[in-house]
């Protein structure tokens, strides 16, 4: 899910809801859309509930970038 942008997922959901609300689709297709919608809602919720991420520092090393842990304890003391 992380590769799929949250925004894209929301857009898809919007489409699904308006499709479903239009009532134009046969039952089977509607159920399929509903299933996809439920899946998208749950993966979006999952993103929002992700546990706290570590803060990192961007460092340049020999022309390439790397991420290092940021020492937050040092910050708290200040």
């Amino acid at each position, binding site marked *: 899910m*992380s590769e799929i*942008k*949250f*925004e894209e997922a*929301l857009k898809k*959901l*919007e489409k*699904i*809801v308006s499709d*479903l*609300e239009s*009532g134009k689709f046969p*039952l089977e297709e*509607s*159920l399929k859309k*509903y299933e996809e*919608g*439920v899946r998208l*809602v749950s993966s*979006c*919720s999952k*993103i*929002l*509930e*992700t*546990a*706290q*991420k570590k*803060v*990192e*520092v*961007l460092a*340049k090393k020999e022309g390439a*970038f790397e*991420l290092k842990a*940021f020492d*937050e304890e*040092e*910050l*708290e003391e*200040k």
Partner: protein
Amino acid sequence: MRIENKGLKEEKRIYSVSELTDDIKVLLENTFPEVWVEGEISNFSQSQSGHIYFSLKDPKSTLRCVFFRGVNQGLKFSLKDGLQCLAGGRINVYAPSGQYQLNIQRLEPKGAGALQLAFEQLKEKLAQEGLFEPAHKKPLPLLPLRVGVVTSPTGAAIRDILNILKRRAPFVKIILNPVKVQGIGAAEEIAQAIKEFNQYKEVDVLIVGRGGGSLEDLWAFNEEIVARAIYNSRIPVISAVGHEIDWTIADFTADLRAPTPSAAAELVARQKDDLVSELGHVFSRMSSSINNKIKTLHKELFRFQDAYVLKYPLNFIQLSLQRIDELSHRLNQKAGHILETAQHRWTHLTGKLEALSPLNVLSRGYSISFKLPEMKVVTDMAEINISDKIQTRLKNGSLVSQVINKITPSD
């Protein structure tokens, strides 16, 4: 020249020009070693070497001024004719042209402070260039999952940003590019950090800023190099400098201005609660429409209970079988035709293929030779030397021979 009159000759002291100039120089320079003069700049010019020359004038008088490069380099604002200034320095006499001038050590605009003026000048310049155009501003992503922060690693700004994001949007990944936010080189570091994030690419939005301070402390965010780095960033930039009341050039250039670093974090995190409720809303809308659909179908089902087909199902099935028979007959006819066409086409193609086959050519008495041992087809005399072995392919077998002579048409 002799002065003959009245016998006063002995009492007169005759100076050389240099002597007199030297006396004036000593007199003037000792009398005005440090003065402040107020006036309007005119005849402004700057030499190639960086020295600045102009006159300060008021309605009655004019004072020549020189502002040497070593001193004028620290000047934040730019000078031009008409600017009202307060100039501090010492009076110099320039002997070669017999002129006195003010050698400026400090220069301030009258009224607003030097920094304020520099701010206004840069703001006007960049506005004219279009750096603040709303059309250039990029929208923020709805839910940034990776936030890049350009600020001091030990300042109040990063602490505030972390506090808020951790509490309100723990799912956001925060990447800090630590920089100096005040003092010499700060502006360059900030601009460089923004560029680095753009090379790194893996963030959705940038927060660039620092906590509160004096105008001098915030100055790096009023430098042109920072404004341009923000303007050129492909990643949307939220500026977050100082307090609510502090407006910097960076704020005007950024895609979005947050009044404080905390507010910037709120802008990024803001949507979590909204999104959770929006998702809930979407879910209930989906569910109620699918429920409605099912209810409607149920109703229709009841309606059909009385329909003809349901009352006489056998009749319906017979009609269907008849239709299937008819269709399969038509299908057979069609299929036969397709097969025939395909067979015709196959015969035609194989005939063509045979005509092109090298085997066919061999059967007419031609042969093909390969050089041994690599079995390379021989097409050129130059490829073969006397006593090379060759294999020759005929219609019904191959011969291996050794070359004993080469004959070319010119021999």
